[in-house]
């Protein structure tokens, strides 16, 4: 039986929630098939199967948050016996965890206890697991000991090398066959808790027996994707919940004000059509121009810190991408160092990932300024809510031919309306106005 684990999508991610299982028990999966989607603190990501075979057991149902690297499912042959699910913290009996399952298909689920060590040592919290001495880390690596299963005996639960060695020693202390040890370690089974069979030596069968002896919870099944019907009450998806929380927080904490300018995009149109190698999008040009203007008015690229304002040196430009279920904001890092080609290429990669649910947390964090473009929906002008921790967001309307007066004459020009929402705690009106003036100039002169 092979394990599918909760992947760590980005350095900072410690826990994740499975939003949807895209396969159900009994389905055949191949390596690379999308198997479930997860929600981290910012985005929804599609996860691929790391093993091939029949999805035999879903251990962590949708809606439950578990630490990364937790085993969430088992894949094997159709006829293969399931191991002892107690090893995975699966208990028999009624569900006790909240099940934010779709209303149409209320299912009973077991409550997987996240990454519970089966070892005799007391379980450690995720926080404490961070406290590992360098020596312990080294020992764990060389002995193949899963640190999350080891209880630390140092100050505030810091795992010391002796804790690792004790864990490994306890395992090694049990007379067992090499295969049994391997299986036990891989399945997180504590050998000291396995009753040995013939001759007092724990064998492969003993371990497998121990795994298989735990009652299995009834399988969850038939979880269909929610479809919207008028009058229906839809529970919040994790993404919805996050969007709601973040937007409300921003709007209620940061005093917003708005500055709008009209930009004559004629030079941009010309610039866009003048290239031979590639044709940048208007978005590429606007992002480039925004970076230029921020360099002249760095205060716009700041973060409110309660008793200080941090003006950030690098410009990490977030841009909102609308998805069916909500929106995500991938970030172009250090955009001030990018050429228009770079911006074009990198933003395409990010948009692609966003639409396919493959954004990694590192792709959508670290933003210092954000833009949002609703021009594609035919919107002339709108105001956006600041994407914190930024202090400003630029709302972009559609480019539309309008009649304007130039040098006393009437002309038709492609006009775009830009609106900056600013956090007044950080940015004053004059700064916002000057920034917008600079942005307008860069675009109107196509001076990238």
């Amino acid at each position, binding site marked *: 039986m092979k394990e599918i684990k909760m992947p760590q999508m980005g350095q900072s991610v410690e826990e994740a929630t499975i939003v949807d299982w895209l396969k159900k028990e009994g389905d055949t999966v191949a390596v690379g098939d999308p198997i479930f989607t997860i929600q981290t603190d910012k985005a929804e990501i599609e996860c691929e199967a790391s093993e091939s075979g029949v999805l035999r057991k879903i251990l962590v149902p949708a809606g439950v948050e578990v630490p990364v690297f937790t085993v969430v499912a088992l894949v094997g042959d159709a006829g293969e016996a399931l191991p002892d699910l107690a090893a995975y913290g699966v208990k028999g009996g009624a569900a006790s965890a909240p099940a934010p399952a779709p209303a149409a298909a209320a299912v009973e689920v077991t409550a997987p206890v996240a990454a519970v060590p089966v070892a005799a040592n007391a379980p450690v919290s995720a926080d404490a697991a961070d406290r590992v*001495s*360098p*020596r*312990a*880390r*080294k020992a764990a690596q060389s002995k193949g000991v899963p640190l999350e299963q080891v209880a630390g*005996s*140092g*100050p505030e639960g*810091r795992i*010391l*090398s*002796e804790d690792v060695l004790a864990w490994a020693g306890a395992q090694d202390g049990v007379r067992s066959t090499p295969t049994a040890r391997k299986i036990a370690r891989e399945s997180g089974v504590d050998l000291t808790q396995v009753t040995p069979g013939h001759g007092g030596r724990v064998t492969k069968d003993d371990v497998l027996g121990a795994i298989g002896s735990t009652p299995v919870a009834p399988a969850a099944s038939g979880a269909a994707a929610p479809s919207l019907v008028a009058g229906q009450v839809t529970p919040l998806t994790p993404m919805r919940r996050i969007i709601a929380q973040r937007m409300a927080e921003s709007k209620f904490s940061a005093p917003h004000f708005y500055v709008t300018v009209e930009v004559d995009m004629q030079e941009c149109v010309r610039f866009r059509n003048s290239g031979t190698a590639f044709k940048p999008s208007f978005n590429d040009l606007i992002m480039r121009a925004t970076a230029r203007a921020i360099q002249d008015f760095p205060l716009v690229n700041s973060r409110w810190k309660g008793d200080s304002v941090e003006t950030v040196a690098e410009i990490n430009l977030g841009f909102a991408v609308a998805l069916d279920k909500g929106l995500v904001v991938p970030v172009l890092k250090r955009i001030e160092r990018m050429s228009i080609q770079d911006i074009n290429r990198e933003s395409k990669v990010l948009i692609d990932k966003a639409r396919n649910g493959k954004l990694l947390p590192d792709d959508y964090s670290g933003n210092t300024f954000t833009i949002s473009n609703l021009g594609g929906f035919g919107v002339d002008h709108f105001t956006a809510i600041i994407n914190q921790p930024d202090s400003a967001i630029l709302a972009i309307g559609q480019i539309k031919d309008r009649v304007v007066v130039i040098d006393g004459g009437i002309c038709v020009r492609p006009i775009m309306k830009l609106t900056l929402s600013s956090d007044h705690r950080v940015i004053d009106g004059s700064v916002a106005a000057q920034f917008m003036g600079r942005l307008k100039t860069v675009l109107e002169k196509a001076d990238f």
Partner: protein
Amino acid sequence: MTKALMVRPDEVRKGFTINLGEIKVNQYSKTLKDELKGKGPITPARAMRIYRDMVIIREFETMLDRIKKTQVYEGINYMHAGPAHLSIGQEAAAVGQSVHLNVSDHLFGSHRSHGEVIAKGLRAVEDLQGKPLQALMEGYFGGEILKTVESHEKNFSPLKAGAKDALKTTEAEELGIDFLLYGLLAEIFGKEPGFNKGMGGSMHVFFTPFGVYPNNALVGGSADIATGAALYKKVRGAEGIAIANIGDASLGCGPVWEAMGFASMAQFNTLWEDSHRGGMPIIFNFMNNFYGMGGQPIGETMGIERIARAGSGINPDSMHAECVDANNPLSVADAYARKTAILKEGRGPVLLELQCYRQTGHSPSDQSSYREREEIDLWRSVDPLLEFGRQLVDAGLATESTLAEVQAYATRKVSKACKLAADETICTRMVLTPHQGVSQMMWSSEIEDFSKTQVLTEGVLLKEEENPRVLAIAKKSRKGIDENGAVIKGNKAVTYGEAIFEAVLHHFYRDPSLVAYGEENRDWGGAFAVYQGLTEALPHYRLFNSPISEGAIVGTAVGYALEGGRALVELMYCDFLGRAGDEVFNQMAKWQAMSGGYCKLPVILRVSVGSKYGAQHSQDWTALCAHIPGLKVVFPATPYDAKGMMATALSGSDPVVFFESQRLYSGQTEVFHPDGVPADYYRVPIGEPRIVKEGKDLTILTFGATLYRAHEAALELESKYGVSVELIDGRSLVPFNYDVLYQSVKKTGKLILGSDACERGSYLHTIASNITQMAFDHLDAPPAIVAAHNWIVPPAEKEEDFFPQPWWFLDAYHTQIKPLPGYTAQTNRTPGEMLFLSKYGVA
């Protein structure tokens, strides 16, 4: 402090008046003509050389002035980034001084000593020309300076100048002059062919083969070092005198007074043995140019009308003080002839004030904002070169054109030196890396083996084995632990203090150059009785009481060692190091490397870390010493190591600060070396920590007496908590072989560092940081520091709250490394507490 000198109330209480006597000022009134008429040392040839030497100095410094201000001299371009303190206007003082000096007379100077170096050097070249000069030029740093001056512009044209060519030079002398000027200038420019490989530079340049000893950038720094050189000459019967060339403003410096006091000790005449009786052969030569940098000692910053007056405060001879017109080389030469005679009669020391005037600024950046233009002009009108040139013409030795010829000659000589020294292909700089250059010159690291050296019969007063203390120690156990495992107390077994005594005694009977002195060293036997038994064994000239002059104690030891001797000096309490700050940190630490690795400096400085004596007598300042590059710093904690490491220090060629602990002298017997303290001679290498006790769970490293408290802690950790402790005695801070510690930490993964020094800036932090770098992946916790608090040392009764106690180690283990079951920490060692305390400056 000696039974030979009775302090009698009837004498002390008798009424009388002290007569300070007379101090002569500007009494010389002869002309050159007068001198030539007599049969004295001023011959026509000498007079012409005096002029030539003054002109060379003037030209050399004029060159430096131009290079510094315009980066060009005689078409030679060079940018000199370093200092150049010029003495233009003071040439007569420098040249007049050297007229009567021999190579064996040793000159110690100041930051403004180019002129003195050239004058003494030219005199030495003249005296040594021939085989001795050739040999020393070929031998100095592989003959590189010689090779360069020999192979460039070798168009030898002897100088023949003055009436009947009174000034005639030979090819050998010309080569010697080129050698001198190039070696000096390359040094000033900080280049490797320089006399000190460029590591001395303008303010420190020296060349001992010519009798030119270190010039010192600390004002008055040469006073006590020259006194130490004179001490060597006196103790060892070496030829010549020592001269401290120091400035008028240095009279404001304590160590200058300390040096004059040291040099004038009455015991030289009252107590020292007949073979060594008499005054110190030293001249404190104050070059009075009337300014410090800009302040004026006479009339502004001090209360005296002439520097020479200071002599009357030092001894009944008023140091034979005299104030001389040093604008005239003849009056200076006259004074030197008379004063060196006084020294040879054993009536030193002498104080001489040479009045001269610095026409240039303190340094090229000096705007002379502190003096009137008129004053400079007045002195220019009596310029020593002008006046003496006129005397030569009056005496019929030269014409104006002869003088011009000498000037042209000087320009030629200086140009050659400048051209070579400025050339970046010929005259390059030292490559400096941790493996090359001056890094390899910090130590001389020689060990002289005294284990089988013949026992001295001179310079000792009784047979080594008949020494009363040796006999007393012979009755004691060599081991500190008896057959039953019980500790034997200090009255029954060899102590820490006795172990040091044994090493010192051994060396005194085998190293004729060894002297020991310091406060209460004789009779009392040192404040902590380490030297008890030495008074009976040694004459005064090898062991004596010094004045309470910490600066001079260390400074003289440096001078003594530079001359070739080995000095063992003591500061009593560690806390007195501050009094000798310059001498320890700038002098003792520096001269080996600043000589470009030429000099050796075997000075062993004993300092004692106090206990129970409060804030100014109980501090461990190992970190201060370890911080200064150039000092070896050791702190043995056991009798075995104290004896063996003292033996190594006394066998070496490097400066060693030897820390001892007052908690150990009389009570501590040998409990960690199973065989006790060997009666025979042995050495323990400096730089190697020692594993006192092996263990596997925790490493504790300590420096000094903290070892014993750590040991108590180790026993408790093992017996009560089953933590097996590996205890390491650091023994030596610089150098410190990390390998022993690294291997131990690799094994245990846990480290506590302990010492009685205050925590902030403690050397323990250096070790902690380095071992974390080296062994990060082996560590189970950051190294924990157990150190004294960052307060003043409280009274004896409260020391437990201040100095590390055994339970502090348990607290550190419990709080910072691994909680001990059932243990409650008595001290707060959490990060939160550190953060809190840091705001108040006590963390």
